[in-house]
């Protein structure tokens, strides 16, 4: 089996974000790293975030930094990745790509302990960069310019110190003196030597300054001083003429200003009043704002509160450090303060947001200062505050993020043409169920009912600009059947097949130019748009009922001559020329040659597209795609000022150019009959369409997306869910560690309002606890989505079971679990005695704790009965078990449960579940169970799959096969009788298969004696499965599912990841395709190595050698290559570049 891997939706989570002027000039831009994707974002004039460019780098980006050479106008990007190389990129706005300026190898690849790449620090004057590892190694590169003003990079200077852990590094701003880098370090050499553990207890973090002597070209340790042991982050303080220089050390509970030869200035970070005492406050992200006259820092804590830090400084250095509460936004991984007054917040989980500054926190608020710091016997006196609504920031845009996808299922619950993807996303109060549909989102502007509109054309009425009317009537009784026109030319087809061609002459008169008799009736026709600077267009396309399309010339020299003929599979219904103008460095496009495409909607529902040679009119490079059950009608519309095509079949599609690619994407809208462009003051680029008997006006949003999503808010982190296809309902289990229960939260909320004198306003009903997208606009002073749930002790759990109707997005039943219980697994089960019909089994744990060792009070399996046609739940009984039931599954009218390392079969009793049979031989913890006939496929948390068999006559469970590699399973899916698909924690997807002969042997063993007595070696099972597919995705895959996303398409395996991306693995059906794509991949690897220096093959084989998977993401970068390179690769493959593009498009069209 060979698979084709294709990412359908790129990762939406953000690892790191930096801001600067990457395209030069004054425009503020943001570069974000999304794991293996590097993208450039720009807020447009309306404050909407636009993605200008996005590229997969086939590596793991760990850190980003930007720098600018003195006097330059443009920022460069430094990337720290797992490639063992430092890479400096420059954004090329003409071509809309990142250009690699430098790539210097310094070590091994991979995210290792001592290989630099984890940390990056830049000298604020752009003279040097330091790249560091978690341990020991730090390298400094000197940046300079050569005589041609090009960026140069020196060979690396070492600043290593062995037996040292590095927590953070940053540049120190010391004007134009020698560059200095600061690092928080911990020396563990003594602790390692001392086995009693005393030295380890005394280990102390230090702040160390490294000076790069530009004259001697040498790095030396300049200064080192003890620092708070909770220190985790450094922030550069402006120096030179702008400030006091030095660094801010962010530590647990404190912010400390430090500089060489300067006493520490320390202030406590204010705490939320409701925070448990044992919890500290940690700064997780920081941003600096610097103007000519002032600067301040925004520091965000792990609970989402942002503090503004200011320094009082004079000639004697810093006299006071103030930390003032600023605002609270969801916890970020990075924040960027843009010079234009925006704050870009890249959320850790959930949607990212762009905020505008309303104020910079000058109003009085809770403030902690170094001058009022009180030290008592128990330590420093804490400062408390209460989070409040946004005062300084206002949110103006958000970017959707699916991170993390916790579970995903694909089903056609809404009975649409294509199935929907149901995914559980997000965490805590920001979690949601997102329903994804392939297609573009549209926003409807207006709908109105229409009376019938009769149209009877029997002539041409030419209305000139001044209002004069020119009329031409058809000769005799013939009527016009079809007409095509552009601004200056008109062609009409009369019944019988006569074409008459008119032209507007110099004086503006409509003149008949030529007549032409076709062999039969004309099915459709279209004239190409007039090219710029020309009098007329040269091409007329005519479709006939004899399954042909002809291109006719409109030139005076050879008027109405047939230039080319194309036969198609079915009579064409509609024709449209789509002209792609040559563009040089457009808004989103690089250089593209002009192209003319002829599109034909055929009666069998296929859209047929060919390229028309602009000179000869020859047709080439034809592609076809099935759009729907009705013949597509084609209409030309404008999208972002460029011509685009609307194809109306049984669902509407939009064909448009995005970032240099032609994309054909369905619109998430109902069936339309006719459509046309529409422009008004309210909507510049709308579409007006007729659907049924209603007139609709809509616009198309967010081009370039594969999926459009509908989000339904949830209460806690969703864990798993089950679909009830018949009742079209979902049952979702949600649980959160370290949170207060709903009642406790409500009580605390009331208390807080009363304290704030808002008692009467505390509309504390249950609905308010439902957080969600719609709630944000309400005057809710403390929406959980924004502020997060108050933290409780880590042994407290909250959890709920929810029955959700996805059609109305309404929760029909919500059960909050009581008493520290949390739900972890769910399944529907039909027991033998059909007394209750389908029941719901939920596995829960009470008082679960992970640290210092996993422990729990008790585990339970709840059995619920569905009431009111499945819309509500009633507890039947609950059964105590000895571990956490992490996996449940129905099996032969009974319930299989994986409880710790025990696989157990239960039957339904009156008051509890009854044990029937068990097997205790699993190595660690069972996390997944799937069944097929009498086979049971058990996934272990650490040891991959175990294939089991249940013998009914003996009532025993046997493990007859297992895997040879330890795999930390995160997702599993049953493919066929002998095959399982799995994904592990390290980002690999793999398939294992039981060899055919072993499988036959096991099935043919009537007594089962052989399985029973056969012993494997080293406590393993007697038989071993074989790995047949192996691929490194580079992201933790959390769900796998087999599905077909297009009507009539083949099935593929879809996966969802923690970073919020969706991908597909499509099995190849022919050997030719495998050969073609593996050769293409090979050439792409050679000719187009990944941007950040990681070797593609090594990346895809990061943990295990890649096996039988071809990376479509790499192949799809083929169109981005320069044309001569494309031609070179195509020659090697004995094809033309056009054919390769066609193949790539076909492969994608098989998936989505």
């Amino acid at each position, binding site marked *: 089996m060979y698979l084709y891997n294709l990412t359908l939706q790129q990762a939406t989570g953000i690892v790191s974000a930096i801001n600067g002027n990457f395209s030069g000039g004054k425009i503020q831009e943001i570069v974000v790293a999304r794991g293996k994707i590097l993208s450039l974002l720009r807020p447009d004039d309306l404050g909407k975030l636009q993605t200008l460019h996005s590229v997969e780098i086939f590596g793991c980006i760990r850190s980003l930094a930007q720098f600018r050479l003195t006097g330059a106008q443009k920022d460069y990007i430094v990337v720290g990745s797992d490639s063992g190389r430092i890479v400096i990129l420059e954004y090329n706005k003409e071509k809309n790509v990142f250009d690699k300026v430098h790539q210097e190898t310094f070590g091994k690849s991979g995210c290792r302990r001592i290989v630099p790449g984890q940390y990056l620090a830049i000298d604020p004057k752009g003279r040097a960069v330091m790249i560091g590892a978690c341990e020991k190694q730090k390298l400094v590169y000197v940046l300079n310019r050569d005589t041609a003003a090009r960026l140069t990079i020196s060979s690396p200077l070492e600043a290593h110190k062995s037996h040292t852990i590095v927590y953070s590094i940053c540049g120190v701003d010391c004007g134009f003196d020698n560059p200095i880098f600061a690092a928080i370090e911990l020396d*563990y050499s003594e602790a390692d030597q001392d086995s009693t553990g005393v030295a380890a207890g005394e*280990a102390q973090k230090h702040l160390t300054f490294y000076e790069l002597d530009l004259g001697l070209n040498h790095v030396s340790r300049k200064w080192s001083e003890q620092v708070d042991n909770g220190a985790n982050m450094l922030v550069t303080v402006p120096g030179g003429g702008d400030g006091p220089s030095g660094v801010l050390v962010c530590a647990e509970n404190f912010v400390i200003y430090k500089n060489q030869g300067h006493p520490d200035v320390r202030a406590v970070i204010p705490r939320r009043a409701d925070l448990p005492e044992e919890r500290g406050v940690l700064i997780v992200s920081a941003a600096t704002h610097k103007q000519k006259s002032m600067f301040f820092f925004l520091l965000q804590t792990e609970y989402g509160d942002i503090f503004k830090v200011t320094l009082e400084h004079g000639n004697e250095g810093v006299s006071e450090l103030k930390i003032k509460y600023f605002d609270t936004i969801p916890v970020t*991984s990075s924040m960027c303060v843009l010079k234009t007054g925006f704050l870009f917040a890249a959320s*850790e989980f959930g949607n990212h947001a762009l905020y505008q500054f309303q104020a910079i926190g000058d109003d009085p608020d809770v403030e902690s200062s170094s001058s009022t710091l009180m030290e008592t016997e128990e330590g420093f006196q804490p400062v408390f505050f209460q989070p409040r609504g946004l005062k300084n920031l206002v949110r103006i845009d958000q970017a959707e993020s699916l991170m993390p996808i*916790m579970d995903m299922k694909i089903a056609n619950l809404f009975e649409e043409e294509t199935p929907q993807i149901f995914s559980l996303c997000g965490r*805590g109060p920001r979690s949601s169920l997102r329903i994804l549909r392939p297609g573009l989102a549209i926003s409807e502007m207006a709908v109105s009912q229409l009376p019938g509109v009769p149209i009877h054309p029997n002539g041409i009425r030419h209305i000139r600009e001044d209002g004069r009317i020119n009329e031409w009537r058809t000769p005799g009784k013939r009527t016009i059947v079809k007409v095509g026109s552009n601004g200056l030319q008109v062609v009409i087809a009369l019944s019988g097949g006569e074409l008459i061609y008119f032209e507007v002459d110099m004086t503006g008169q409509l003149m008949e130019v030529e007549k032409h008799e076709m062999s039969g009736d004309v099915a459709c026709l279209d004239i190409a748009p007039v090219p710029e600077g020309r009098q007329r267009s040269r091409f007329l396309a005519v479709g006939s009922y004899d399954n042909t399309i002809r291109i006719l010339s409109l030139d005076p020299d050879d008027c109405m001559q047939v230039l080319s003929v194309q036969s198609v599979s079915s009579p064409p219904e509609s024709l449209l020329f789509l002209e792609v103008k040559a563009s040089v460095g457009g808004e989103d496009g690089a250089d593209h040659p002009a192209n003319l495409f002829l599109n034909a909607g055929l009666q069998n529902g296929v859209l047929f597209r060919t390229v028309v040679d602009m000179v000869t009119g020859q047709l080439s490079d034809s592609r076809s795609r099935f759009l729907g059950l009705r013949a597509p009608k084609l209409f030309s519309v404008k999208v972002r000022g460029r011509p685009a095509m609307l194809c109306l079949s049984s669902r509407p599609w939009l064909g448009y150019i995005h970032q240099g690619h032609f994309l054909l994407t369905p619109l998430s809208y109902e069936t339309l009959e006719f459509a046309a462009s529409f422009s008004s003051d309210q909507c510049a680029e709308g579409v007006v369409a007729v659907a049924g008997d209603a007139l609709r006006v809509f616009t198309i949003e967010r081009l370039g997306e594969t999926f459009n999503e509908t989000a339904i808010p949830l209460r806690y982190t969703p864990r798993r869910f089950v679909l009830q296809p018949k009742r079209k309902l979902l049952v979702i289990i949600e649980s959160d560690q370290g949170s207060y229960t709903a009642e406790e939260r409500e009580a605390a909320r009331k208390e807080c309002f009363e304290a704030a004198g808002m008692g009467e306003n505390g509309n504390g009903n249950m609905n308010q606890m439902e957080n969600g997208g719609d709630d944000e606009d309400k005057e809710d002073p403390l929406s959980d989505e924004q502020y997060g749930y108050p933290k409780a002790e880590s042994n407290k759990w909250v959890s709920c079971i929810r029955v959700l109707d996805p059609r109305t997005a309404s929760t029909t039943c919500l059960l909050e679990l009581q008493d520290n219980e949390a739900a972890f697994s769910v399944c529907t089960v039909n027991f033998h005695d059909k007394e209750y019909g389908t029941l719901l089994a939920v596995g829960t744990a009470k008082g679960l704790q992970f640290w210092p060792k996993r422990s729990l009070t008790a585990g339970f399996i709840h059995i619920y009965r569905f009431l009111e046609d499945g819309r509500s739940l009633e507890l039947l009984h609950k059964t105590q078990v000895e571990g956490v039931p992490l996996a449940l599954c129905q099996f032969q009218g009974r319930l299989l449960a994986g409880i710790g390392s025990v696989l157990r079969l239960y039957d339904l009793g009156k008051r509890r579940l009854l044990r029937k049979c068990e097997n205790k031989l699993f190595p660690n913890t069972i996390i997944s169970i799937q069944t097929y006939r009498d086979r049971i496929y058990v996934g272990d948390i650490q040891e991959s799959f175990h294939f089991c068999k249940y013998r009914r006559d003996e009532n025993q469970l046997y493990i007859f096969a297992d895997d040879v590699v330890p795999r930390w399973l995160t997702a599993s899916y049953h493919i066929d009788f002998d095959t399982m698909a799995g994904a592990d*924690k390290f980002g690999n997807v793999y398939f294992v298969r039981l060899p055919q002969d072993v499988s036959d042997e096991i099935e043919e063993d009537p007594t089962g004696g052989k399985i029973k007595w056969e012993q494997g070696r080293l406590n393993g099972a007697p038989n071993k499965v074989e790995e047949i597919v192996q691929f490194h995705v*580079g992201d933790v895959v959390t769900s796998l599912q087999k599905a077909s996303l297009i009507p009539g398409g083949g099935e593929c395996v879809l996966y969802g990841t923690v970073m919020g991306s969706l991908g597909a693995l499509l099995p190849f059906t022919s050997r030719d395709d495998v050969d073609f794509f593996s050769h293409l991949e090979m050439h792409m690897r050679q000719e187009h190595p990944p941007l950040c220096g990681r070797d593609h093959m090594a990346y895809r084989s990061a943990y295990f050698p890649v096996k039988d998977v071809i990376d479509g993401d790499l192949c799809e970068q083929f169109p981005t290559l320069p044309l001569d390179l494309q031609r070179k690769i195509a020659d090697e493959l004995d094809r033309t570049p056009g054919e390769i593009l066609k193949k790539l498009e076909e492969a994608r069209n098989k998936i989505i």
Partner: protein
Amino acid sequence: QASDRFNINSQLEHLQAKYVGTGHADLNRFEWAVNIQRDSYASYIGHYPMLAYFAVAENESIGRERYNFMQVNNILSFCLVF
């Protein structure tokens, strides 16, 4: 002298000095396990998706998770139960 340079032991010594965590013949169980542990933590910190995965499991922020993985008690004096 020349033979010393190609001696397997001198090569090993060089490797041990250069690459932290390279094993040697007298490595005891504890040292070996400490190295594995430290390598694992470094890998967790380097791979952001994995860090996020742990953060979801423990309901902590990713920043806190990274901090915990690097803290002294984790890296230095964790208790191995053998």
